[in-house]
C-alpha cells in the first residue's frame, strides 16, 4: 500500500494506471447498473475522467 | 513401464472426446438445419413435428433466384407445357417466372466489396506493419493503440458521421464507398496481426540481404514477403470473413446498387409470408464458402484467432 502511494507521488505509471482503470470500470458499472438514476447520470463523467487520465498516465515512466 | 505423469489416461481421453463430440454435434444442428431447409418444399419446412426425413426439392433455390407472379389457371393453360424443369416447379403453384431475383446481384456485390476491401487492407496493412515492426516510428505505441481502438468502436455510432460524409461526397450506396469503409475497419486487424507475424521473422535475413546489395524495397519484397506469406494469407482470410459477414454498415449505408447479401437475405419473402426454404437456400449459398474455408484452412485460422486477441 505504501509502495502504491509512493508510486502515485512520484508519478509512476503502474499505480496511476490502476487508478485510471478503477475509474473506467466504475464508470462502466455506473452506466449499466439498475439501482439509481443519479449514478447513471454521472457515469459518463467518471468514464471520461478515467479514460483521459489513462491516456496521460500511460506516458509516465515505469 | 514408463509413462508421462502429465499425459491424460486413455479413459480420460475417451470421456473428454465424447463430451466434446456431443457438444459439437449439438452446436452444428442449426447449421445442418439451414442446409436441410433449403432443400425442403415450403410445406415440409413448416411441418410439425419437424421433418428430418424428406424428399429433397429444389423449390427453395428456384424461388431464391427468380421472381414470380401468380396467374389464373386459364392463362397458365394458355401458356402451353413448361419448357424447363424450374418452370415446371413454379407452375405447380399457379405461378410463372417473370425474371431473375436480386439475389445474384447482391451476392456479386458481396464478392466485389469483400475481395476489394480485403486486397486493399492486406496491402496497406502489410507495409504499415513492416514499418511498425522494423523502424522507429514516432509515437508508435499511441498509433498502434489508436489503430486497434478504431476497430472496437460501435459500428452504429461510427455510421452517423460516415452517413453524412458519404452523402456529401456521393459515396453512399457505391461499391467504392463500401470498399473504403471496410478497408478502414479491417486495417486495424490486419496491421496488428501482420505486425505479430513480421515480428517473428528474424531481422538477420534482411540484414544479410542488405549486405548482398539489396535495397530496402528489394529486401522487403524478396525476403520479408515470402517469409510472411502464410501470415498474410491468414490475415486476408480474416479480413474477407469480416467484410463478407458485415451487416450494420451495409444496412445503413446501402440500399440498391451496392447492397451486399447479409442485409438482403433476411428480406426474402414468398407469396404468403416468409419463404423459409428460399431464405435457407440463400443462407446456405452464402455461408457454405466460409464453412468450407474454415475447415480446409483450420490450422492457420485457429492460430490467427488466438493470435489476434492474445498477442500484441
Amino acid at each position: 500500500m505504501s509502495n502504491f502511494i509512493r508510486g502515485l507521488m512520484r508519478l509512476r505509471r503502474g499505480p496511476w494506471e490502476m487508478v485510471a482503470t478503477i475509474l473506467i470500470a466504475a464508470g462502466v458499472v455506473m452506466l449499466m447498473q439498475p439501482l439509481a438514476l443519479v449514478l447513471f447520470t454521472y457515469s459518463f463523467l467518471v468514464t471520461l475522467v478515467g479514460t483521459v487520465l489513462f491516456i496521460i498516465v500511460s506516458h509516465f515512466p515505469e | 513401464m514408463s509413462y508421462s505423469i502429465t499425459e491424460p489416461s486413455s479413459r480420460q481421453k475417451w470421456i473428454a472426446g465424447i463430451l466434446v463430440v456431443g457438444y459439437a454435434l449439438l452446436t452444428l444442428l442449426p447449421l445442418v438445419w439451414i442446409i436441410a431447409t433449403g432443400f425442403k418444399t415450403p410445406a415440409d419446412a413448416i411441418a410439425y413435428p419437424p421433418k428430418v426425413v424428406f424428399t429433397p426439392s429444389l423449390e427453395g433455390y428456384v424461388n431464391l433466384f427468380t421472381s414470380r407472379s401468380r396467374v389464373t389457371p386459364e392463362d397458365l393453360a394458355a401458356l402451353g407445357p413448361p419448357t424447363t424443369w424450374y418452370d415446371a416447379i413454379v407452375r405447380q403453384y399457379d405461378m410463372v417466372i417473370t425474371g431473375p431475383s436480386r439475389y445474384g446481384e447482391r451476392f456479386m456485390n458481396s464478392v466485389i466489396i469483400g475481395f476489394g476491401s480485403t486486397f486493399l487492407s492486406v496491402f496497406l496493412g502489410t507495409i504499415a506493419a513492416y514499418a511498425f515492426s522494423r523502424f522507429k516510428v514516432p509515437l508508435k505505441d499511441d498509433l498502434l493503440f489508436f489503430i486497434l481502438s478504431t476497430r472496437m468502436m460501435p459500428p452504429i455510432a461510427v455510421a452517423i458521421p460516415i452517413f453524412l460524409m458519404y452523402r456529401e461526397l456521393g459515396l453512399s450506396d457505391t461499391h467504392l464507398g463500401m470498399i473504403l469503409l471496410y478497408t478502414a475497419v479491417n486495417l486495424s486487424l490486419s496491421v496488428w496481426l501482420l505486425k505479430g507475424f513480421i515480428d517473428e521473422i528474424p531481422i538477420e535475413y534482411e540484414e544479410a540481404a542488405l549486405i548482398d546489395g539489396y535495397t530496402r524495397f528489394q529486401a522487403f519484397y524478396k525476403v520479408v514477403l515470402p517469409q510472411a506469406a502464410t501470415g498474410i494469407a491468414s490475415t486476408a482470410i480474416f479480413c474477407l470473413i469480416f467484410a463478407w459477414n458485415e451487416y450494420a454498415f451495409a444496412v445503413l449505408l446501402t440500399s440498391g446498387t451496392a447492397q451486399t447479401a447479409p442485409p438482403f437475405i433476411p428480406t426474402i419473402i414468398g407469396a404468403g409470408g416468409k419463404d423459409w426454404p428460399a431464405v435457407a437456400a440463400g443462407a446456405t449459398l452464402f455461408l457454405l464458402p466460409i464453412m468450407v474455408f474454415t475447415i480446409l484452412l483450420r490450422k492457420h485460422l485457429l492460430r490467427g484467432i488466438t493470435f489476434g486477441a492474445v498477442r500484441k
Partner: protein
Amino acid sequence: MHDDLAQRVAAATPPALARRLRGVSDRTIAWLFVTPTILLLLAVNIFPLNWTIRLSLTNFRTNRPNNPVEFVGIENYRKILTNPDTWASLQATAHFLIWTIVLQVLIGFALAYLINKKFRGNDLWTTLIVLPMMLSPAVVGNFWTFLYQPQIGLFNYFVAFLTGADPASFSMIGEVSLAPWAIIIVDTWMWTPFVMLICLAGLRSIPPSIYEAAECDRASKWRQFWTITLPMALPFLMLAVLFRGIENFKMFDLVVQLTGGGPGATTQLTSIDLKREAFEKWRTGFASAYAVILFVTVFGLASIYVKALNKVKDR
C-alpha cells in the same frame, strides 16, 4: 549497430546501388509505408469522430437540413443521461452482457479443458465447434427466428422433447420474459468457441514441468486445477472476458435480426436504441452525443484490454 551495418553495406555495394540506398532512407520508407494507413484512418475515423463531437453539441436533424442549426452546449448529454429509456436500454445491455459472458466462459473453459486432453481427432472437432463464429451474425440470426417459431421451430421441438412442455405454448422471441434469454442463447451458441480458443491458448501456455513438479509433491488433481491450471489461465480468461464484453456492448446485427429490440423494448440494446434515434427519428445531434458516450466507454474498455494484453504478452 545500424551505422555499422550501413557502413558494411556501403562498402559491399557498387556505387550506383549505394546511391540508391542513400536515396531512399529507412526513415522515408517508414513514412511511405505508414502514411496511407494513417491517412485512411484519419479520413474514415478521426475526421468523422471530430464531426460527431461537434454535432453532439447542436440540435441538428438530418431529415430537416433547412432548420437553423443551434449550438446547445451539453444539453444533448444532459437529456441522454437523465433519460430513463436510455438507462433501460443500457440495463438490457448489461443483462445480455453479464449472462453471455458467464455462460461463454463456463462452457468455453470446460470445452478447452476437455480438448486439452488431446483425444484423437481433437483438432477436427475443434474446427467444427468454431464454425458458428465464422458465419454472418445477421444471416444466422435471421434463421434462428425460424428455429424459435412456436410449434414448428426446431428449438421449441427440442425443448418440448426434453421437458415435455407443449412446443406451441411458448415463443422465445415473442414473450417479454423469454426474449432476453433468446438472444443470450444465440450469442452463446455463436461465441462460446471464441472463448474456448482463447482458453485453449492459455492452457497450452502452461509448461508441463509445473504439473510434473506438483505430481512429485503429491498434490491432488483437484488441487492442481485450483493452484496451477486456473491461475495460469486466468490472464487469458480476462482477455476473453474483456473482448467479449466490448463486442457485446456494441452488439447490433445478431439481435436486430433476432428480435429487432422487441417485444416492447425488452431486448432493445444500446446499439439498437442508438440506431432508432439516429436513423429512424433522425435526431442527429442527440444521437451524436449518444455515440460519443459509447465511444468514450469503449475507448476506456479498450485501454484496459490493451493493458491486460501486455500482461499476457510479457509472460
